[in-house]
């Protein structure tokens, strides 16, 4: 039995991600939890996130999720961050007037801006909402079976720039280029929502369920 702890710190709906994980693996038990012992006992850990980062980080700190995340990352077990769960791993986000994040990886989260334009000068709406192409910048078990430039579903107004470009797992462009994913040892994190990205997203989650945590 493969047990996955989906860290539940009270922000947003975890229903879809739990159901998607159950769908892609028959012998998987998905537990929604903030209990450090349950997270410690799990075989893999998923950090989701939706909503404003200030509230997310505040709840993580209040519930001790920050320490759980650090421990899970150090333990070497497969760890997946999604959306704000990816942004939260960096140092700092501009959102909500500036928020210190968990600082597990060097990087910053910036606003797309109110006057975003594409190369032709056409106005781009914010949030970046919808299906955009992801350029996989390295070979990784989580990208396995997913074609280069496949579209995934995004919904966000802030984008990540990692300090160490060697950790970038993929890039995307929306008015500006940004780092769409992070890969370091047992950690993989993405800005888009695999649980909302139909077949490609389910494939990525299945890869996570089968991953041994090594690059």
């Amino acid at each position: 039995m493969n047990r996955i702890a989906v860290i539940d710190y009270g922000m947003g709906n975890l229903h879809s991600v739990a159901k998607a994980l159950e769908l892609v693996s028959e012998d998987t038990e998905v537990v929604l939890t903030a209990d450090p012992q349950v997270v410690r006992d799990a075989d893999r850990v998923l950090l989701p996130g939706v909503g404003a980062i200030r509230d997310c980080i505040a709840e993580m700190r209040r519930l001790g999720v920050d320490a759980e995340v650090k421990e899970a990352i150090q333990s070497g077990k497969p760890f997946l961050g999604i959306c704000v769960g990816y942004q939260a791993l960096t140092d700092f986000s501009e959102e909500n007037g500036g928020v210190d994040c968990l600082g597990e990886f060097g990087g910053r989260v910036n606003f797309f801006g109110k006057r975003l334009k594409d190369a032709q000068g056409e106005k781009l709406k914010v949030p970046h909402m919808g299906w955009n192409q992801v350029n996989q910048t390295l070979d990784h078990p989580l990208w396995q079976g997913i074609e280069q430039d496949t579209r995934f579903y995004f919904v966000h107004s802030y984008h990540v720039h990692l300090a160490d470009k060697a950790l970038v797992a993929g890039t995307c462009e929306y008015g500006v280029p940004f780092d769409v994913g992070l890969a370091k040892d047992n950690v993989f994190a993405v800005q888009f929502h695999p649980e909302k990205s139909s077949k490609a997203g389910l494939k990525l989650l299945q890869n996570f369920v089968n991953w041994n945590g090594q690059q």
Partner: protein
Amino acid sequence: MALAKRIIPCLDVENGRVVKGVKFLDIRDAGDPVEVARRYDEQGADEITFLDITASHEGRDTMVHTVERMASQVFIPLTVGGGVRTCDDIRTLLNAGADKVSINTAAVFNPEFVKEAAERFGSQCIVVAIDAKKVSAQGEEGRWEIFTHGGRKPTGLDAIEWAQKMEELGAGEILLTSMDQDGVKNGYDLGITRGVSETVNIPVIASGGVGNLDHLVDGCIEGKADAVLAASIFHFNEYSVPEAKAYMRERGIEVRL
């Protein structure tokens, strides 16, 4: 490389069944919403919008259950609307598995509700549905007003100003329906679609009036919509989602294939 225009099949759901007001065809039942949504996901739809048109309380419970079932089997974004009046309504729908909720009448009567909802749940999940009707005469500069109660009650609110106000209050997206066009199959009202889309900085979904694939193309190109919503052309197999996408791509529109 660019963001794809989204194609969104819309399910009108009453007491747990998809219904469609193609009145002259007298086809009421278009199936189980979960089955219908699964089919669209399979075909490559980019999102599903689910509008509950049930009035009764029992019906509302059925709907929450339907959203739960749908979210367990359909892994594309799901917007749910119809009768959303309080933050508790929103919480219930999000917990059931909706990704976004659509607020319509409640926003007209209490704009602050949009602000409260956006602050509590994040703008990304708050869609404001706007039902607009053209009130300018032929030859005059276009003017559209917000109507409620299925298009019967004018509010005196200018639709473009209203959309701007909704953005300021925290709406993450606008679902814009032309009441004149809805069900008529003559295409979207491109004037109001473009007017709203060029004014606001949030995505706009065009809705109301699709009868053929050119209407989807026009909505994206002339209407500048970020997403196009349609119901009957898909429900009754006049066109499939892949046909629609292939057609749009031939006309230079970025779509997810």
